């Protein structure tokens, strides 16, 4: 049994029919067609599925799509301003914080939430703030450098 709802994603309203058990991640990727948000683990352990819900980071794999109605969802596709890359995106590229790129959208979403709430985080606050995003490629060093640089450029 599906329920017709409207999801607001990156500022646009999408009417979708959703099964009760569907998670937000699957609706974003299939019904809405935004595949930048990734599925890495199914159970909130890797952070590849991170989106912002009313500006707070949420593991979209573990959140029911129906519960997102009336809230504002931001995905990686909604991060880039019209005039080019967001500072976080640019820093990650220039510092070498991107390798395979599969964790990258989640890293960017968590970073954005972190810096929105705390524009000048300490290194420890960055480490804790991004601890829900696993990266297997980089050893985190260049991601950390990119976040520090984004914060100091702010």
């Amino acid at each position, binding site marked *: 049994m599906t329920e017709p709802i409207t999801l607001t994603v990156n500022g646009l309203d999408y009417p979708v029919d959703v099964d009760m058990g569907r998670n937000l991640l699957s609706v974003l990727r299939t019904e809405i067609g935004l595949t930048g948000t*990734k599925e*890495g683990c199914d159970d909130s352990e890797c952070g590849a599925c991170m989106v912002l819900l009313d500006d707070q980071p949420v593991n979209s794999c573990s959140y029911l799509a129906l519960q997102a109605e009336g809230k504002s969802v931001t995905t990686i596709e909604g991060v880039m301003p019209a005039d080019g890359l967001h500072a976080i995106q640019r820093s990650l590229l220039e510092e070498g914080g991107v*390798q395979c790129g599969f964790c990258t959208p989640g890293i960017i979403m968590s970073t954005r939430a972190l810096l929105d709430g705390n524009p000048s985080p300490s290194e420890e606050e960055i480490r804790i703030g991004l*601890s829900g995003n696993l990266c297997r490629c980089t*050893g985190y060093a260049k991601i950390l450098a990119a976040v520090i640089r984004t914060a100091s450029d702010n």
Partner: protein
Amino acid sequence: MPLLTESKVFIRPDGPDKVTGSGRYVADITLTGMLTAKFLYAGISHAEIIRLDVSAARRVPGVLAVLTHEDVPERRFGSIADRTLFAKDVVRFEGEVVAAVAAIDAEAAQKALDAVVVEYKPLQVVTDLEEAIADGAPLVHEGWADYEAANVERNGNVASFTSMTRGDVEKGMAQADHVVFGRYVADATHAAPIEPRGVLAQWEGDRVTIWSSTQVPFQARDGVCETLDLPTNRVRIIVPHMGGGFGGKCGFHYEAHVAALARVARRPVRLVFSRREEFIAPDRRREGMIIEITTGLKSDGTLTARRVRVLLDNGAYSADSSFFPHMAAMHTLGPYKIDNIHAEAFSIYTNHQPSGSVRAPTAPQTCWALESHTDELAAVVGMDPVAFRQQNCIDTGETGVAGQVYDEIGLQECIREAVSGIDYGQDLEDDEAIGVAVGWWPSFPGASGAFVKIDRDGKGVITTGAQECGTGSVMTLPILAAAELGMEPEDFELVYQDTSVAPYDEGATGSQTILNNGRATVEAARQIAVQLKNLAAKKLEASPDDIVLADGRAHVAGSPESAVSIVELAGVAAGGELLLGKGSGTPPEYPSAVGVACVGDQGLSGWAGPQFSCHAVKIRLDRETGVVRVLDVSAAHDSGVIINPIGASGQVEGGVMMGIGQALTEGTVYDEDGAQKNPAFLDYKLQTMADAPPIRVHFAEVHTPNMGPHGSKPIAEAPNVATAAAISNAITKLTGQPVPRLPMTAQRVWETMRGGGDG
């Protein structure tokens, strides 16, 4: 001279796709009419299939294909041809594929799986390595003698073995003042890329296109051809963006299953693994091991003899693991000067998930054992462990364990720099310690090809079979081509990972891209350089031999003002002889060997241009709980001349972090029936950013002759070798004795301090 100036920021060409979410990975690709694939796994580690009936599954609404072994050609494959696409008669590990379905959605596919009737008669499960090779052990493969493989000898559950002998080990032991024995046990671990694999297949007529998250598209293609009886030119493998591999996506996996489903269903079919499937099903797991080392040494620290015995858990099938005994033997002997050696290594069939290439296969475990043992040796003769290594590790011109005499190598520089990078002599808190370990890793010469073209606007395309799974081929290959042509790396785009378009390459395996595809790309670019020089010579009225390509221009040597831009030359060429280059070249040869292996030497016993490393780590130990935290890491590597600094240091940092996980928190736990108990990230614990220490990286940039371009050597796997070993040596300084089992979990460290048990 570096190929990139230090101030140059070269952004990886696939980077903008990856930071904006526009880049497509397999799971992101949808084709019209596409079906969802799901597999039925054995769910039991060893059993006879006494009934398999899929008729009800085929009747489930929305199901368009249900396949078992009856629906595909009867073919055995693998480095030892011991497996089939679908289980027939017997299942040998929990993740073995028994049936596959394709349906209009995941729910219908699941209903079909639930409707498959399969009955098993359980067989005795083989999980313990020593028991598996004891007389009368139940056999994992009853029909093993009939399998095709080079030089195999039937010997119970031994899948493959290596024996290496040099000098006289008995005599060497007799000359020793001390003989030290160590036994170490390593648990299995996983590659655990963050992207679970995906395969999407679509038939058009008698040709199939397969999008797959494989590190080795040509191997995957060959597997499809072999198992489904197809010629190579009708199977096209395309790899879109790929979310990490680390060896876990090497080999031929599920491309044939999905292609077979798509052929029967007459629809595109996509398979995407869950995290649990990614843990239990693929034939790529870092094997568990038992490692025994006996070393004889004199009181002055001179090593006189070493004997090693290594048992490797092959798992149920052989994937690419048949050469692993050789690798394990070399790593357990180590980069040391020892004239008398004897090594035996056995890869043993069990009812566990198959082993296969995971980043530096066999090395982290054997290095952990050997280097823990080496610190014991130093302690026995009262030497500082660093000084002991400086005395005993091989250097330029010296002879290694397998008889190889080394060209210019930087192992001693690595030791010196790693140790100074961590301030080895510093005052430490009483719960802190520094451990040091050395490692090595071979370079694998192989065939590879590349095409390079430059179009009318002076922009280039490199078409190559090389792979990009995050490792940076997209950076390194343009840097190499640009250097040959006096152009910028940004002038090149890479077309890659399409077996019908690009020449052969082994793929992202064995760290081989820079060594093999790098040579091919340079050779292809050089052909274009000749073309450009001829065109410029005509234009500038000079000899082609006097033309220099630099800064986007061709100029006459000694007269930089007499120049023509490459863009202009490209315009000329566009109307005549096009700027096209191709490269392949003869790979460097392996040095001679002293070893014997059941599947042939494979050129591994003497290693071509090995990479060397030394890692030093500072840890803190919570003595009341055994929890260890790594505070600081200094990693020094001889990977020859570094072509792409940001990529190379990224490889080291990632490899170190993976090593910390393997040292402390990553280990697969099996139940007594051979099933994995922790196939999820909650209990298979990767390190987080909160755990990550600062990592200092030093490259000993030894110009290595006859290896990769510009004196380079590979880099991707070597950083994953020595970290766990260094952590072990740091822990031992605080606990008094090594933790005999990997991972060195908090509980095992605590038990070691209490003086008993190994968890």
